[in-house]
């Protein structure tokens, strides 16, 4: 709260080395950040102007205090989480304020490196039209903060907080990030030498794979799946919703469920359908 009531480094710098502007009046918050380097190549002075709520002002103020004395490279590594931590945490719905701080800093650094003075043009596909948030931005925030739900994405980037039409698109980005994370986990796992799974580990991994990899695919066609039992390497499942009694259920079982489970859990698994 102190950074809101007594914000540090408010104002403008004459002839700054880097300027970054993000947000707009329509969005409800905006930030202009500028810095000047000292002879030692470190950030000697930094100023900001903010239009926004208390958290936005506090985040901006905190950011300026944090990067003072850093090199541009060091400043480039500051994440929105660092800003939130500096402030002693931000409420979940206000995380987008810290993201805005990091974006403005990135923009200022880009501006310093390229020497271009024009406002950074939004890169990539715009997902949320209400607040002008791109796929690139959402993907980055999801990755950096380990987000898993659309609601979290809205809290962190505002995307999906307007008309809500883009929520399915955000869901897709989350799915992609989830797959990447799983892949990375798998690779990390592979590096540390394949080890025989305990029964509990195996069941957990099967559940996790069904949850993250298989269910979303089936749900797209109105179906669902339930794990009934695991006996040795035989995985027993029941198909639900549209999948139950579907003509191509056997195909789904072998080519989707079994393939995924073999990929992510263990290559010697077989899948059987349980009919009730």
């Amino acid at each position, binding site marked *: 709260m102190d950074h*809101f*009531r007594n914000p540090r480094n408010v104002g403008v710098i004459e002839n700054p080395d880097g300027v970054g502007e993000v947000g707009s*009046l329509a969005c*409800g918050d*905006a930030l202009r950040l500028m810095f000047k380097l000292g002879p030692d190549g470190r950030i000697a002075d930094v100023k900001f102007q*903010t*239009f*926004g*709520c208390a958290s*936005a002002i506090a985040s901006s103020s905190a950011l300026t205090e944090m990067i003072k004395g850093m090199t541009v490279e060091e400043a480039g590594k500051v994440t929105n989480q660092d800003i939130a931590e500096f402030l002693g945490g931000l409420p979940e719905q206000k995380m987008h304020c810290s993201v805005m701080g990091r974006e403005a800093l990135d923009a200022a650094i880009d501006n310093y490196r390229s020497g271009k003075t024009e406002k950074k043009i939004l890169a990539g596909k715009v997902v949320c039209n209400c607040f002008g948030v791109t796929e690139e931005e959402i993907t980055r925030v999801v990755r950096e903060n380990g987000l898993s739900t659309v609601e979290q994405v809205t809290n962190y980037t505002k995307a999906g907080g307007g008309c809500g039409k883009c929520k399915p698109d955000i869901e897709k980005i989350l799915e992609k990030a989830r797959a990447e994370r799983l892949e990375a986990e798998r690779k990390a796992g592979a590096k540390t030498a394949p080890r025989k799974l305990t029964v509990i580990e195996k069941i957990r991994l099967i559940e996790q794979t069904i949850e993250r990899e298989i269910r979303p695919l089936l749900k797209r066609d109105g179906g669902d799946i339930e794990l009934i039992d695991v006996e040795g390497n035989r995985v027993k499942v029941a198909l639900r919703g549209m999948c139950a009694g579907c003509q191509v259920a056997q195909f789904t079982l072998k080519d989707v469920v079994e393939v995924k489970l073999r990929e992510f859990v263990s290559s010697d698994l077989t899948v059987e359908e349980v009919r009730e």
Partner: protein
Amino acid sequence: MKTIYLDNNATSAVAPEVIEAMMPFFRDQWGNPSSMHVFGGQVKKPIDKAREQVAALIHADPSEIIFTSCGTESDNAAIRGAAEALGPRYNVITTRVEHPAVLGPCRYLGERGHRLHEIGVDAAGQLDMVQLGEALRDGPAISSVMWANNETGVIFPIAEIAAMVKAADGVMHTDAVQAVGKLPIDVRKIPVDMLSLSGHKLHAPKGIGVLYVRKGTRLQPFMLGGHQEDNRRAGTENVPYIVGLGRAAELALESITKEMTTVAALRDRLEAGLLATCPDSRVNGDRVNRLPNTLNISFEYIEGESILYMMSDVGIAASSGSACTSGSLEPSHVLRAMGVPFTAVHGSVRFSLSRYTTQEEIDYTCNHLPPIISRLRAISPFVKK
């Protein structure tokens, strides 16, 4: 530090007389009015009296007063109850500036087979009567149009609107939660079929509301499972709160002239003071047809939540239509419907007074607000140099 409460459209202080009236019904007379014994008998009369007191405030017959748990319940009971009684053949007409308690059920019905018309407003927040006329020609309809707006205080020409709806053989409900107690209301003169009011907006506690239902109005009860309120609203009567609301209604009737004159004069003093000392500020909504206690003012280039925090530091409580204060990321749907520019919506602050507001408090506010506004503008990147 002294605190100044200028957020009476959100909720209002419970009047000391109301608390006094309620206490015996917690302490001694805690019986269930449905009981045959003495405990039940002694609380029946006080409920009848409260019903008369509320009826008197809006000039209704006591039999037309149904006690509910809140304004939102009244709105739901009216709109969904009428839709259920009349069937999907009836369209639903409402406005784009209603409280969510009305918009919610109307849109719910819109998703379930009723054709929904949402009537727009002009830049002053006044209803588009041409569009309303067109919607009424689209077939029989249940119309729900607010008496006065909670955010801007704009008063709709409810007599004219109700007459149009009745001429088209429709059902007319009005959410009068903000109007009751601040304006004289007479349902004998204005042909509304149903009217919602809420206790905590007129110095009774939260948890009590009323739905006025004109005799002969077809309505399917919302709450089932009891004979209370003449089979129109099941559930054991909330005796202390009903008694409290009755007393609050009586006080409101006595103070209506004060609301219309003293409170209005204080509001005008606040408005003039702020407009004179804060450049780039504007009043939102019709300044003539407006609740006597409400002022919605936009301070350009700065954001409402920041203003509220700084006001709160000097002890002033108000509210804002900015996105950051709405709990969602969308700024006020009311100001957006009026076409107020984003710049002004985010910097909007609503001051709502009550009969307990003093001139000293208004002068304090007039003195303390300008420094806050200029301090925040000094931080803002949008202020024109």
